[in-house]
């Protein structure tokens, strides 16, 4: 018993010494701060309010709610003398909707890669404009339907995107208010033909006409995101509202997926260091 207590004490002592040593090493940075290695990372969780129409499945709107997840990385980037911002986002929604007594399950996921050129309008306001590559997919699933129980959603698009950031002073703190809009301009999307079964597309391989050119006239879609970054101690709380309004009218089939999400999470600013530097800083063997 006595030996066990001594052993525990020794472990605590060694661990505390080791931690002190690491902190000492951390306090001696191996290089100057590089702004291109600062990454703002944010993960949000929330709820989605869904309104789905897909005439391949039913001519009527299904409404309901679901779980919403969003993860984004924002960093500075430069090409030659040209400075810009690089934003990647991943979002997913898992939802359950109803039309009268009929049920529908929704699974949606999207990945956006965006590049922005920032314009400083004033000390408080910045406007960013840029381009975006969108990749989105998912499915609407109606268990009661027989041969058309699923409607698969797949699309990729080149989009115009813009961000407005306003730094709002509140007492001695500042709250960053951010509004982002993404508008797909041209791309390709998957859609079965009007009365075509998935058996014919995937079972028999008759894929003629299922890949369509998508543009704002046949697929007028956009996404708005409004968020507020609120500092709380050393952390930054982000509250966000996203309206992802997807629509299409191709192959005589009409679709809309109106996804209004309310999400909350913490934003972190991290500094990415090179692997060799991290080895020098943290490995006790070097």
């Amino acid at each position: 018993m006595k030996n066990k207590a001594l052993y525990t004490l020794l472990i605590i002592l060694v661990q505390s010494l080791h931690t002190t040593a690491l902190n000492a090493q951390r306090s001696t940075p191996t290089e100057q701060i590089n702004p291109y290695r600062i990454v703002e990372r944010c993960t949000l969780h929330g709820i989605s309010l869904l309104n789905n129409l897909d005439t391949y499945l039913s001519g009527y709107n299904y409404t309901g709610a679901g779980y919403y997840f969003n993860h984004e990385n924002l960093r500075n980037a430069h090409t030659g003398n040209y400075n810009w911002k690089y934003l990647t986002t991943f979002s997913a929604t898992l939802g359950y909707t109803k039309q009268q007594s009929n049920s529908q399950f929704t699974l949606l996921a999207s990945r956006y890669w965006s590049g922005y050129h920032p314009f400083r309008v004033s000390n408080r306001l910045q406007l960013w404009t840029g381009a975006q590559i969108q990749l989105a997919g998912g499915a609407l699933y109606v268990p009661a339907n027989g041969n058309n129980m699923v409607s698969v959603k797949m699309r990729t698009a080149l989009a115009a995107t813009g961000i407005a950031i306003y730094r709002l002073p509140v007492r001695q703190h500042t709250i960053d208010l951010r509004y982002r809009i993404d508008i797909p301009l041209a791309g390709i999307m998957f859609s079965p033909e009007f009365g075509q079964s998935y058996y014919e597309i995937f079972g028999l391989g008759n894929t003629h006409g299922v890949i369509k050119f998508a543009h704002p006239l046949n697929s007028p879609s956009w996404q708005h995101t409004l968020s507020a970054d609120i500092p709380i101690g050393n952390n930054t709380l982000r509250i966000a509202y996203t309206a992802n309004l997807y629509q299409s009218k191709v192959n005589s089939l009409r679709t809309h997926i109106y996804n209004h999400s309310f999400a909350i999470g913490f934003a972190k600013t991290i500094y990415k260091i090179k692997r060799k530097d991290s080895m020098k800083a943290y490995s006790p063997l070097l």
Partner: protein
Amino acid sequence: MKRLIQYIVATLLSACSMSCIEEDNFENSPIGNFDALWNIIDQRYCFFSYSEKEFGLDWNNIYHKYRPLIEKSNTGLEQFDIMGNMLRELRDGHVNLTSEYGTTFYWDWKLNHPINFSDSIQRNYLGANFRVNSGIQYTILPDSNAYAYVGSFASNFGNGNISAMMMSISKCRGLILDIRENGGGMLTSAEELASHFTKEKIHTGYIQHKTGTGHNDLSTPEAIHLEPSDGSIWLRPVVVLTNRGVYSSANYFVMLMRELPHVLILGDRTGGGSGLPLNSTLPNGWGVRFSACPILDRQGKITEFGIDPDTIVHITSEDWNRGHDTMIDAAGMLINRFYEQLENENKE
């Protein structure tokens, strides 16, 4: 660059000027639900041109015939019956209306014809020692022919299971494949079973689908092929037994099998049902199923109203009374006659 900006501005303005994409909804009322049902069928049903030729169906007349009845109806059950009766005018077993009151069916493809099947008589052939593999009941008959009953295509058989069944009857001279009263299931199950009866890829038919809301908006027929299975292949004589209860994917199975040189279809005409059905809903949540994709045979003919057998045989009342199945007996005789002819040819 200037052109690009002009394009972006033009497309954004166009997008903004477009209203939200919505469907032309009907209201949730007796008239609204009736109109919604009539419109779904009008726009999405695939056999109008065929039905007009076959029995003079006029869908616009049907609307004027039934709408006054809906206007006079008082209860949901009455409306359900009226709408069900309207759908029966299509004479299609794949068209159903489903609600809390039940499901409407069109059964005339089966009920107005001789049944030509008795599971009590079938027991006299299966005996007590038959095997069941993936829902297929099979045995070896006294004349050394195998008998297998496939009552449904509702689930996958499994390549290994069918191969194992074929191994266990591998010493039989021929196979009597009974699919009477098989109301269908999955097309892929029918293809899976049929793939064990061919050693080469063969062209068996075509499939189409609706491309728009017009009655004649149908796609160009795309070929359907039957590919051989990776498992056991049965190339000895096969007699497929059919009756009017053979419907939907079972009808499709007959369409595949009749293209094979060592297969003979025996019995009564099949029930049909060659349209692959899709589903939709009404404003009140009732479900509707309808044929949306016609499947054609290798000659490009629609088999919606059934496929004629190579040899017509009915169960006679004498056989029925003494517990004999005329079709199974005839199938056995045909296989035996085939081997007798083969022996005679070899002697010559």
